[in-house]
């Protein structure tokens, strides 16, 4: 292993600038001549716009322009799009209402964009925004997921009868129904997956600049995928041709999915800067973030498992209603379909699965991917249902899991729901987690807690997820509008240091370190001589960005392949310089060596020769700079078992997590310290969903939880120190042997926490968030 190479706990290279306040975020950018944008947003959840009078606002002090949906349409700026098709059960594509970046005639959620004011200062823009007079015709609002498609409901979009975006059945219904007919036992459960506001630390922001000389727009954005933003804005929104649009995602303070999507504000800023021929800046305030960032989750489901007399799963049947909000966000349709139903097998060999998903529109903010995206919803449903099965069968939760695990020798394993799992050893992870959690000692701890008036519970969650998104052909067949390969360029400079250009984007994950470790391992260049560059379409080659725990599993492999090309070329250069046959050159630890001799040449010297090719192999191109693309053969399938132990105070309903153990299979770890940080963050995210976070609209469609005064984010004192370990397997199709780790905690934690609470109280189920009030009520009714 190279020093600082694969497996080393290298301190994050980027942290010096982050911790010393030298990060460069979008809002840090101030451009000469800059104006400020402020959006006039709908205060109503559902209303027609009878008229918009901008005259008073336009005349207000400092106002440069007041623009509406009519101006947008007049300039031919296209509506926001959803990039993934899901075919509904009638054979038609999902219903997609037109989503103009500024409303045209109607608003559909509180926070919907009505107009934008561009002014010299932000205060002037806000003052003028209050002078925009909008005559609304208020309509009844639809907010509840479960009843959105009921007969007689208020219709939101003409193109979507009964507010249904799609009905998407998957699986062999007849075979599943037959298995249920003959089952020994059927366990069932109704459950809600609570709606979340993603809450990245840095709110969204955009700065648009137009250069009338080059006719180029430069758009700095809080984006997880600058090239995807550029592609969509060029190809679908007609903002500017790709070669005349530069998108930069500078330092970005957390994404969690919410910064994947192309939002109204971003498109409007890009368009407005050209229209007013001045730079335009917009930064979301926290209230706007609550109102208009894409939200996550929001499912209502009924799940059933058919079991035989030994507790083996025979078949599963799931009926889900998923709330997509008022409009389709960029990847909204795929989250409750492909990213959800295709994970319903979990770690189990359930042979038959049938799922129906009804995706509905409501007068709420659009819902899209949030850390885990579909997989937390599938895992919560399945891992809760498995605990109900265990109770119904009189089996220990660990035992029923063991009886149904896909055996270690069955990989690669084809599930009944499309996915073919790469590798896994689910028993190994379970055993390790049980030991880490001292599962056998639980009864004694529960007894001791009882003496203090507390009820102690323990909960398991054995999850699997699909990462390394994604094989382009597979997602293409499913209806995705893009391929999901990744790109890299590894460039030696003449002086021997290295710049690594990746098409992924780091917004807190530590790529600048992890990727540098890959390169130092492979090329033997000291890590301090390696710089990872990302996030600027003018600097890096086209790339697909970061989401779905794909950056290392897909983007990292592209970097490794580019490094391989450099080594191959380097052998030719070294052979010429060392007067040896190319076949005799070996490469190790940064040196090209003539096999069996002490003749060697460092890769930095090779790079210099390539740029100063005075004595050089005939016909070989100068330069030492290679690029590579990698399209994965399969998803990767991280998995693991998380065990949560809680103490419930039955008098107050307070839940304390007293112990949390996580054993994950992420394949090979490049930087274990960074991975552990990702696990910690993911678990806290999942604990937040399980205990604290719950986005609430009232029946009028007002967002009740629109600030941190009302929306409870997890804090350090809500969680214990975690016990983290690994049970890695080797995914055969991934050249680096890696799987991805960014979402696992958020997927594994919610059912572990809730299973622990139901265990403590001896109840069948409790919905998330398990607030003190909910837990107290459950404790009272359980007696």
């Amino acid at each position, binding site marked *: 292993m190279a020093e600082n190479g694969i497996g080393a706990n290298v301190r994050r290279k980027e942290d010096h600038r982050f911790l010393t306040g030298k990060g460069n975020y979008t809002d840090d950018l101030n451009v000469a001549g800059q104006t400020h944008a402020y959006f006039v947003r709908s205060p109503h959840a559902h209303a027609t716009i009878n008229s918009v009078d901008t005259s008073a606002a336009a005349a207000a002090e400092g106002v440069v322009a007041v623009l509406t949906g009519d101006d947008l349409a007049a300039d031919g700026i296209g509506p926001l799009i959803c990039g993934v098709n899901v075919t509904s059960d009638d054979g038609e594509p999902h219903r997609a209402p037109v989503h103009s970046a500024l409303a045209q005639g109607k608003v559909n959620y509180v926070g919907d964009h009505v107009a934008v004011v561009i002014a010299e200062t932000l205060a002037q823009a806000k003052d003028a925004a209050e002078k925009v007079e909008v005559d609304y015709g208020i309509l009844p609002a639809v907010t509840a997921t479960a009843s959105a498609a009921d007969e007689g409901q208020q219709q939101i979009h003409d193109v979507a009868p009964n507010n249904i975006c799609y009905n998407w059945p998957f699986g062999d219904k007849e075979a599943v129904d037959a298995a249920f007919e003959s089952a020994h036992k059927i366990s069932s459960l109704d459950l809600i997956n609570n709606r979340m506001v993603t809450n990245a630390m840095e709110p969204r922001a955009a700065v648009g600049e137009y250069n009338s000389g080059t006719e180029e727009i430069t758009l700095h954005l809080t984006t997880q995928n600058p090239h995807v933003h550029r592609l969509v804005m060029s190809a679908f929104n007609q903002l500017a041709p790709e070669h005349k649009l530069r998108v930069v995602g500078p330092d970005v303070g957390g994404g969690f999915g919410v910064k994947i999507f192309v939002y109204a504000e971003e498109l409007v800023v890009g368009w407005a800067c050209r229209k007013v021929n001045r730079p335009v800046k917009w930064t979301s305030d926290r209230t706007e973030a609550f109102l208009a960032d894409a939200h996550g989750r929001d499912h209502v489901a009924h799940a059933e498992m058919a079991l035989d007399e030994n507790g083996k799963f025979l078949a599963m049947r799931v009926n889900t209603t998923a709330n997509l909000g008022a409009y389709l966000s960029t990847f909204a349709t795929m989250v409750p379909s492909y990213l959800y139903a295709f994970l319903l097998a979990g770690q189990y060999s359930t042979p038959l699965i049938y799922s129906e998903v009804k995706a509905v529109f409501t007068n709420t903010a659009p819902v899209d991917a949030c850390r885990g995206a579909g997989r937390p919803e599938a895992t919560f449903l399945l891992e809760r249902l498995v605990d109900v099965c265990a109770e119904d069968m009189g089996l220990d939760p660990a035992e029923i899991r063991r009886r149904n695990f896909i055996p270690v020798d069955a990989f690669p394993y084809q599930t009944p729901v499309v996915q073919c799992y790469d590798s896994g050893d689910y028993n190994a992870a379970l055993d390790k987690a049980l030991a880490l959690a001292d599962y056998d000692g639980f009864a004694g701890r529960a007894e001791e807690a009882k003496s203090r008036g507390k009820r102690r519970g323990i909960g398991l969650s054995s999850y699997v997820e699909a990462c390394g998104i994604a094989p382009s052909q597979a997602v293409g067949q499913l209806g995705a509008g893009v391929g999901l390969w990744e790109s890299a360029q590894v460039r030696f400079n003449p002086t021997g240091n290295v710049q690594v250009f990746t098409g992924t984007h780091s917004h807190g994950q530590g790529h600048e370190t992890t990727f540098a470790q890959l390169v130092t391992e492979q090329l033997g260049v000291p890590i301090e001589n390696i710089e990872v560059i990302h996030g600027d379409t003018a600097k890096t080659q086209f790339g697909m960005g970061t989401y779905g725990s794909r950056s290392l599993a897909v983007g990292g492999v592209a970097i490794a392949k580019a490094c391989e090309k450099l080594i191959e070329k380097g052998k030719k250069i070294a052979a010429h310089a060392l007067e040896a046959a190319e076949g005799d050159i070996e490469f190790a630890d940064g040196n090209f060596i003539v096999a069996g001799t002490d003749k060697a040449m460092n890769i930095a010297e090779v790079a210099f020769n390539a740029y100063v090719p005075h004595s050089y192999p005939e016909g070989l191109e100068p330069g030492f700079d290679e690029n590579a693309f990698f399209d994965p053969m399969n998803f990767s399938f991280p998995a693991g078992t998380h065990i949560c132990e809680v103490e419930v105070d039955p008098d107050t309903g307070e839940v304390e997590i007293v112990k949390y153990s996580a054993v994950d299979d992420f394949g090979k770890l490049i930087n274990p310290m960074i991975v552990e940080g990702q696990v910690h963050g993911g678990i806290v995210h999942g604990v937040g969903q399980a205990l604290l976070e719950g986005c609430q609209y009232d029946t009028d469609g007002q967002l009740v939880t629109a600030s941190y005064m009302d*929306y409870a984010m997890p804090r350090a004192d*809500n969680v214990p120190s975690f016990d983290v370990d690994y049970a890695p397997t080797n995914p055969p199709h991934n050249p680096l042997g890696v799987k991805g780790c960014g979402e696992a905690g958020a997927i594994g934690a919610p059912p572990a926490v809730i299973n622990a609470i139901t265990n403590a109280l001896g109840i069948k189920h409790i919905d998330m968030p398990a607030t003190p009030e909910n837990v107290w009520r459950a404790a009272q009714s359980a007696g």
Partner: protein
Amino acid sequence: MYNFSYQKVTSVDDAVEAMQKADDGKFVAGGQTMLPTMKHRLASPSDVIDLGGIEDLKGICMDGDAISIGAMTTHAEVAASSDVQSAIPALAKLAGNIGDPAVRNRGTIGGSIANNDPAADYPAAVIALGATVKTNKREIAGDEFFTGMFETALEEDELITSISFPKTEAAAYMKFENPASRYAIVGVFVAKSGDEVKVVVTGATACEHRGMRL
């Protein structure tokens, strides 16, 4: 935030005069509620009169059998005061658990009481301990000071100068926090004095309740 005139005064008289001259003036103490409200454009005073420069309103002193806390004394100062800790430890503990360190270093006892947030901690202590609220005009019994949600007995140009808490035999405060805001969903202050025990509940309803005398 809307535009407003700002002035920092150095005496109670100047503060009152400034208020009387203002169209729609507001005193600001620690500003922990007022400034966020103004930032959200939910309040738009014409004049903000900063009491932070009035030295007379700051500090804690023993006054016979009572402890007197100046209106502009921060929660952090109350929590750290050895006088408060020894005279009424429950009050020091209450102050030390308000908000977070930033709030405790800026927020003041006078500001908290004048604002009378139904979820604030101090009002329960003022009533349960039988405190007296001293203003530039008069003395108001704690029992009569809080009149409704965000409403007090204070007049427009009246400002709190100090709060006098009589020593008590025993007292305690416990609260159940909102997990988001960490304000008290419900807080209970219990104080024993002689053969009287007072229990005052904060949170739970719109205004402090007179509590019970046991």
